């Protein structure tokens, strides 16, 4: 569109133009502006079919104990977005993406619990060796209209349950009028259904479908492996003999401890304590989710409106054939005003983005508060806790050996 930028900027013959130009600077700016104007090479767009309307597969009855696999949903990751660094000030959107990596896994965690098909489901900052199934997610795209997630689920044996990209699209009807902020209308998130709830329902249903392919003995074995993986994590030198790796990299229990082995009781005791800790960690993510929810939903509504507006204005974009003949003052001011308003609109949207980050900053700080006397970020505290448990286990085991 702007392939022919003025080149006469390099000179100024007007006497009133008293500032001398630096050719180097203009050379840069001309090259860059020219580059902006040329048709950019669009990144290859991979279309992911949206999940559509999905009904969560809920269980009315509490599942049998062996069916109650413990799940850890790890804090999501984000895929670096090349657009973040393109324009000055756009890092505010990267910050939003970082913040939502704490929020979105909690929605998945809630959905899995809501399905009543699993045991405990917790959001965790790191991989946890005490759980049966771990879910990792990467946010590929997230705005008011689209959510694309890459989900990987792997059980304690190393079996991959899921490795799939999910996409969902939100519509106007997903955002009730109450999600648009006005002073007279304070949004109440009670009973609000996430605009992308279908994506979480689909993930939960897919996980359930995989679980259903296992018979009871498979699930019992899986839980045994989980137990021994945790024992190995506590004391690899003591328990490494209990697990074997198959050719395809899966773990199998090669040697079981006796039911009345005091070591087994100690491991279970440690595991229980550890689960109490990760319950607390999960509560911190719950608090963060609750703090963020209203602001996040309204933010998404703004994002939804902004994208729609951008699409509408793109349709009214400059058409050289239409304007090429008209270079009157009216035409010039119209061109300038369109540019001016599109920039004002974008700046206001960026200001709202800053407002969102500013508003949830205290909740993010709360997340990193000290848990059980540990300090640092939630990730650091989690690592500290696991070290403490290992040291405790070694201490207790050592005392017993010397007593014997």
């Amino acid at each position, binding site marked *: *569109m*702007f392939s*022919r*930028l*003025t080149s*006469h*900027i390099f000179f*100024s013959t*007007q006497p*009133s*133009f*008293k*500032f001398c*130009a*630096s050719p180097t*600077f*203009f050379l*840069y*700016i001309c090259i*860059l*502006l020219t580059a*902006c*104007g040329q048709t950019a090479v669009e990144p290859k767009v991979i279309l992911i079919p949206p999940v559509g309307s999905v009904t969560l597969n809920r269980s009315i009855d509490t599942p049998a104990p062996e069916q109650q696999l413990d799940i850890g949903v790890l804090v999501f990751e984000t895929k670096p977005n090349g657009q973040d660094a*393109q*324009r*000055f*000030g756009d890092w505010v959107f990267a910050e939003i993406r970082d913040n939502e990596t704490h929020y979105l896994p909690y929605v998945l965690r809630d959905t899995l619990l809501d399905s009543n098909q699993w045991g405990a489901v917790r959001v965790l900052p790191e991989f946890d060796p005490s759980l049966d199934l771990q879910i990792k997610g990467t946010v590929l795209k997230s705005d008011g209209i689209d959510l694309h997630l890459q989900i990987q689920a792997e059980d304690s044996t190393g079996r991959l349950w899921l490795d799939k990209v999910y996409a969902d699209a939100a519509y106007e009807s997903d955002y009730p009028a109450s999600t648009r*902020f006005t002073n007279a209308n*304070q949004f109440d998130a009670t009973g609000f259904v996430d605009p992308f709830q279908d994506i979480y329902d689909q993930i939960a249903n897919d996980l359930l479908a995989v679980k259903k392919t296992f018979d009871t003995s498979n699930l019992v074995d899986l839980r045994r492996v989980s137990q021994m993986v945790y024992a190995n994590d506590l004391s690899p030198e003591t328990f490494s003999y209990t697990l074997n790796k198959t050719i395809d990299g899966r773990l199998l229990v090669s040697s079981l401890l006796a039911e009345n082995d005091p070591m087994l009781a100690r491991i279970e005791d440690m595991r229980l304590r550890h689960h109490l800790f990760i319950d607390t960690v999960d509560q911190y993510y719950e608090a963060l989710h609750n703090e963020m929810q*209203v*602001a996040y939903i*309204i*933010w998404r509504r*703004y994002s939804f409106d902004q994208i729609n507006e*951008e699409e509408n*204005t*793109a349709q009214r*974009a*400059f058409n050289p054939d239409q304007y*090429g003949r008209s*270079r*009157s*003052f009216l035409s*010039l*001011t119209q*061109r*300038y005003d*369109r*540019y*001016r308003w*599109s*920039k*004002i609109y*974008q700046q206001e949207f960026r*200001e*709202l983005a800053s*407002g*969102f980050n*500013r*508003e949830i900053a205290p909740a993010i700080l709360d997340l990193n508060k000290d848990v059980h006397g540990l300090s640092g970020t939630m990730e650091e505290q989690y690592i500290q806790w696991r070290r403490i448990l290992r040291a405790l286990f070694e201490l207790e085991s050592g005392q017993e050996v010397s007593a014997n």
Partner: protein
Amino acid sequence: MVKWLEKYSFNGSKALALVFAVAAASGDGTGQIFAQEATLGAPADVAEIEHLPRLNLDNPLRLNFSGSWEKDFQRSDKWEDELSRMMTIRQERSAIQSTGGTGVLGPSVSIGNINLNSSRARGSSIVDLARLTEYVSRQTTMEIYQDRNEVRIERRGEADLVCTLAEGPTETFSSDHGAEMCGWDRQQLVFRTALPGDLDIMHRFSVSSNTKVLRMVVSISSRDSAPFNLIQAFNRYDASSGPFNCIQTITRGKVCSQTTILE
């Protein structure tokens, strides 16, 4: 050259140190002053100092544009006068040309009896460009905020002009309706906007060495036409900041808090 000055004022057991970095002028006799507040005193306070923001000497030192500015009409160009001056020059050139002189042909002009060498398809007339320049630079006041990272120019009814203090041109905005880049030409802050149809707008800001006068040059050109330039001068004035500090939030809209000045 960077000269460091230290000024101490004692407050209880702690000393408050204001560290000034005075950047000597690179050529035009101007300098930028940054102040950094640090707490000195007990050895434990060293850790506190470590956490304080530090001057990033990798960032180039810039003149301070911040403040409230109002147009000085006496020292600013009037677009009609500037247009008239340009017309006179072109008339003279065309007169020389018609009498067999060897003057260089100027860009097309499309009014009155000086509509010579014109091809309307080439670009907008100088009158339209002049009027647009006046339209773009019609604001009589502006607020400029500057910190270690960016300078933000706010004008009523206009989108803010925001630029980094770092070297090199930076893309600040792009849409279907135009693109904007900014950068520094020595100590001058330059914004260049490319609008559809090869319409080019440039804002160039410079501030006097005593930071009391700000100069804004707006240049607009269209296609191959010569730019129309309008120079505006602004004087610094003390605008009362008002009793409220407002921030944008998502769930409560704009939230303002009252500021109380402690005597």
